[in-house]
């Protein structure tokens, strides 16, 4: 298994306040479903509009990658776990049992894509890393990929 971590938010250990797990078949119609579920889950933490937009965008990228890349040869399930940790740290894990990523360093390079024919831009990992405070990706070829997105919610009540 290969992995990489960007940002320090994924290393933080804190008590879990709330948690949901959903299993979605890898259908493109479920991209908006995943965003809506995560948005509803973090509403209790009162995120700002920008924080919510960041989270929805990052989740959309990770879920789309499962559908477009991981299960490119067929179909399968996407497992999404969202956790709200103490002091408003949001962690979302998106896991597939698809083809895996042979070279993580190459995959996260801006504009790198293996699916130019499908009009992919190669900006998915760049979006995830830009809009989150931490991203962790671990992958095994032939077994699957897990992407963890972490975001510190400053929230409306503490906004300056």
């Amino acid at each position, binding site marked *: 298994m290969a992995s990489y971590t960007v940002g320090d938010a994924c290393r933080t250990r804190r008590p879990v306040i709330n948690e949901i797990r959903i299993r979605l078949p890898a*259908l*493109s*119609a479920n*991209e*908006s479903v995943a*965003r809506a579920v995560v948005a509803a889950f973090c509403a209790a933490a009162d995120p700002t509009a920008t924080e919510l*937009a960041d989270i*929805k*965008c990052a989740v*959309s*990228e990770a879920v*789309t990658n499962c*559908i*477009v890349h991981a299960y490119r040869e067929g179909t399968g399930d996407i497992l999404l776990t969202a956790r709200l940790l103490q002091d408003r740290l949001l962690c979302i894990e998106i896991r597939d049992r698809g083809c895996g990523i042979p070279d993580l360093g190459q995959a996260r390079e*801006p504009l790198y894509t293996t699916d130019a024919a*499908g*009009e*992919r*831009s190669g*900006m*998915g990992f*760049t*979006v995830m890393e*830009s809009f989150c405070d931490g991203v962790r990706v671990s992958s095994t070829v032939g077994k699957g990929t897990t992407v963890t997105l972490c975001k510190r919610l400053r929230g409306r009540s503490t906004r300056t």
Partner: protein
Amino acid sequence: MIHKQPPSEETLCRQTEDGVLCVRLCGEIDHHRAATLRRTIDDAICRCHPTELRLDMSGIAFMDSSGLGLIMGRRALMDKLGGELIVVHPAPAARRMLQLAGMERIVRIEP
């Protein structure tokens, strides 16, 4: 298709006499929606053979990197036809994605 598009999210294509095709995109652009939008826009391009394609993105509420692929794909098509693509009035959700990808250097954005 599981989701039906609400009428407010309908894509409007309008051709003016001087060879300009205006397409107004509304609502959310993700990978799922991009497939439909691509067909709608490309059908209009094939019908109109425009010299200029204006993508009005003022009504975009959500866009991920699939929107970038959609824009670049249409730009490639317009290049092939010898025409130009212009992104018009991108809403904040679209603009920040364009900025992140440095698209203002490769695509004309107005204003």
